[in-house]
């Protein structure tokens, strides 16, 4: 039996392309050096703080170069290794060698892995060096206890915060970094491999590799748009939403997408969102998802490579069926985006969407055919256009029929008051672990009745809402997306979301509801439970946004109840102030969204039984009651 990998070919390919790997090594080394020693950016931070911050950025995958390397290294290696797939004489030469297609396939995979991962591995080993040279313990040895200057990143590789001087590059952390980058690189390589396996043209292969990761995003957006437009209260797909989806859907990491479908514990962390909510993500689920997808893509490309016919080298897509699917998908995706775009131009009118859908389908169908045929002359594809258009229209009609006859009851359903155990208007609900959400529901009958009334008002005045949207004076929609999450007595939940104008929020009574104390406190329920508090960290910022030198650390004591009264008052006041400004018709809504200087952040550590072990809040007010309490209790001079 022949071995799976042809060693002479493997050696030869390594010999041919080692320079690419060396270039990667150079980039990693420069990245490492610049990361550690680049301390000039923020003069107001101490050097050790800056260095620790830089290395944390690197290890927590926040460094842009790392992200780019995950895409560029597979692309460079792939295009170098797979060039012969796009050249007939080269393909013929490779296929005439005394090797099987399988041996050729696996030799390529192994060579690519070595070229991509070896420099990363060496870089990671270099990163471990600081373990033996950890540097100073703290930045200020005269201070009695470690002077906590926090570096905050919501990643699973670190606990919530890291103090300056602590060893960051532990083997576990660096191994985690290696695993994450390696998984990203291999994942994107598998995407490229699949693209190359189905394409006979270099440009089209790269295009496909770029497009493939967005296909699930596109499907997700399609579902989202259908849901928004037809099911969840006629909210259009705004350009902002498109931007957000794509901005947070890194081609290598479907963070936003995965986060939509998995519980919060398994979210891909980016930004500080999870940290603020006190959630420690479990990255192994992400690792698993990407590994499974990678294996699936490699398996698929293996079969495609076997089925691929050499004589189709040079064709855009070498499989007729996949070619047709690609044309259909490009047409459908283009149709959806043009629909959303023109609907936005028409200020949310449904007719705009239909015009966009038709135009988008026509334009993108012929563009896709031009790419597939590598020619501008695609008039002979008119027959297929009618066929595809018919299929698309048929699918759309079926969807509309299902929605109109099957979903109308769903769309217009508002639960009866006696069936409701609790309700939340919080947009944070999505980020709260399922088993901890119950703390965020408002359960008093008055609030429930008022929320139900507002919900019914929204459904009864849909036409007015659409009109208001169209009549927005400057053509933009200053709306608020208000989610309704009902906890029903039978334990199930019901979720609806509406995009409402400010005026509509006021007229529906939602404005007053947002300013009501029970609803405000439901956002931060730990404030109602001082007895559960383990300790509280309070950080005070001055108006120049400079952090206070000390974090006030208050462990549970008998006085904490009075502290929580002060915190409640300040918190309710700050949220009320926010809503007053937000709903004020006189204010320019562009300006008001600018954050005021923060005066105070608090972290409240509570025992496990409440919705989150860490609470972090930025008080947008002066926090006057809290400051008074701190002074009175000797925490402030």
């Amino acid at each position, binding site marked *: 039996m*022949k071995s799976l990998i042809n060693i002479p070919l493997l050696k*030869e390919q390594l010999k041919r392309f080692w320079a690419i790997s060396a270039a990667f090594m150079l980039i990693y080394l420069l990245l490492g050096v610049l990361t550690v020693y680049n301390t000039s950016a923020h003069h107001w931070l101490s050097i050790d703080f800056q260095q620790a911050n830089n290395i944390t950025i690197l290890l927590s995958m926040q460094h842009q170069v790392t992200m780019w390397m995950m895409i560029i290294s597979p692309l460079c290696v792939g295009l170098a290794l797979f060039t012969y797939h796009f050249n007939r004489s080269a393909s*013929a030469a490779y296929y005439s060698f005394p090797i099987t297609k399988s041996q050729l396939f696996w030799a390529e995979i192994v060579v690519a892995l070595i070229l991509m991962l070896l420099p990363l591995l060496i870089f990671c080993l270099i990163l471990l060096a600081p373990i033996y040279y950890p540097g100073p313990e703290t930045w200020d040895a005269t201070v009695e206890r470690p002077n906590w200057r926090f570096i905050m990143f919501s990643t699973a590789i670190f606990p919530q915060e890291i103090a300056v001087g602590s060893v960051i590059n532990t083997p576990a952390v660096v191994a985690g970094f290696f695993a994450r980058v390696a998984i990203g690189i291999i994942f994107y390589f598998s995407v490229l491999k699949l693209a190359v396996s189905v394409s006979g043209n270099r440009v089209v292969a790269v295009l496909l590799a770029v497009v493939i990761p967005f296909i699930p995003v596109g499907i997700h957006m399609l579902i989202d748009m259908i849901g928004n437009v037809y099911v969840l209260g006629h909210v259009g797909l705004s350009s902002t939403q498109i931007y957000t989806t794509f901005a947070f859907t890194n081609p290598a990491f479907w963070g936003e997408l995965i986060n939509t479908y998995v519980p919060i514990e398994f979210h891909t962390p980016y930004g500080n969102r999870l940290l603020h909510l006190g959630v420690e993500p479990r990255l192994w689920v992400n690792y698993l998802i990407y590994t499974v997808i990678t294996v699936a893509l490699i398996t698929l490309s293996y079969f495609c490579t076997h089925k691929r016919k050499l004589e189709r080298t040079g064709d855009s897509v070498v499989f007729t069926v996949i070619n047709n699917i690609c044309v259909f998908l490009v047409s459908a995706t283009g149709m959806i985006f043009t629909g959303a775009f023109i609907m936005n131009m028409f200020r949310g009118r449904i007719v705009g969407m239909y015009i966009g859908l038709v135009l988008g389908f026509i334009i993108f169908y012929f563009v896709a055919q031009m790419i597939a045929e590598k020619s501008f002359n695609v008039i002979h594809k008119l027959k297929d256009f009618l066929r595809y258009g018919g299929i698309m229209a048929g699918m759309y009609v079926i969807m509309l029929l299902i929605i109109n006859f099957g979903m109308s009851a769903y769309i217009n359903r508002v639960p009866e008051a006696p069936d409701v155990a609790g309700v939340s208007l919080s947009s944070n609900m999505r980020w709260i672990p399922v088993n901890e959400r119950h703390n965020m529901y408002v359960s008093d009958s008055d609030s429930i009745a008022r929320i139900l009334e507002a919900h019914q008002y929204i459904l009864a005045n849909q036409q007015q809402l659409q009109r208001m949207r169209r009549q927005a004076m400057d053509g933009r929609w200053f709306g608020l997306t208000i989610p309704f999450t009902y906890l029903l007595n039978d334990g199930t939940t019901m979720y609806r979301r509406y995009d409402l104008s400010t005026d509509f929020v006021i007229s529906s009574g939602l404005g007053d509801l947002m300013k009501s104390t029970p609803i405000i406190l439901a956002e931060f329920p730990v404030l109602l439970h001082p007895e559960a508090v383990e300790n509280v960290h309070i950080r005070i910022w001055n108006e120049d946004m400079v952090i206070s030198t000390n974090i006030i650390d208050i462990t549970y004591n008998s006085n904490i109840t009075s502290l929580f009264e002060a915190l409640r008052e300040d918190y309710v006041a700050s949220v009320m102030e926010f809503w007053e400004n937000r709903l004020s018709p006189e204010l320019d809504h562009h300006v008001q969204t600018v954050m005021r200087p923060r005066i105070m952040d608090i972290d409240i550590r509570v025992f496990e039984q409440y919705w989150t072990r860490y609470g972090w809040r930025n008080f947008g007010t002066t926090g006057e009651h809290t400051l008074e309490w701190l002074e009175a209790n000797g925490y402030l001079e």
Partner: protein
Amino acid sequence: MVQIENLTKAFDGYTALHRLNLNIKKGSIYGLVGVNGSGKTTAIKHLAGIYRQDSGNVCIGGMPVYDNANLKALVGYIPDDLYFFPQYNMKSLRKFYAGMYKNWNEKRYRHLLEIFKLDEKKNVGRFSKGMQKQAAFIFVMSAMPNVLLLDEPIDGLDPIVRKLVFQEIIEDVAEKQMTVLVSSHNLKEMDGICDSIGIIKNGQMIIERDLDELKSDVHKIQVAFRPGLEPKDGLGFEVLHEEDRGSIKLMVVYGKEDEVSQRIKSFNPLIFDRLPLTLEEIFIYETEGANEIPY
């Protein structure tokens, strides 16, 4: 030894090969000839294990060729459009070939390198087309193949090199019973070296014969019959080509030499001469005559 049976291959609806049959005896040199686009290269690429057939069988020594690494190790293939790893010189290519082919013969490589006088350290990509063909020949022959497939091998080679190439091939055929398939447009060259010939047209084999046999069975004659004594129902053998030159007819006919002579003489012609016939002429007349082959 080398056998193609009912091979059919279509490209995007165009049938390049249609139920093609081809047989090459072990230790023989087979010339595959055909007009441009007749399917020669496609047939050879099947034999080299590059193309997968739509239907039919492509075997060497009774084993299917496609994706058969063991078999491909014994097949040497020089395509018309050559490919070498970019920036490689003969030296680095030698290392690669020596690793890839188990039968690699370093002595032969050195011998051929000396004969063809190629600079081992020069980038092969910078060689002329003829030199690249020589380089390919050196590598393929040094891999000691049992079957050699040459697609238009003498294009771009000067007469001296051409002679050297064929000399080496003939030596291998004689010494180790190597089987060779050569496709070429240069039929004069083929005439001197091939044992058998296959003429391919529109993806079908129209003639496959030993060259000597073919030549002894096809005759070019000029004949003039006495007025009123022309054969009215034809000569009784297959005429590949016929043209009138005044009262003299020029004909290319099939048949055994004696039978043809006797038959013509039975009409008591005024003139009857046998003219020399080249392979090139046979090819031209055969391919002209096969215009009507349908598929």
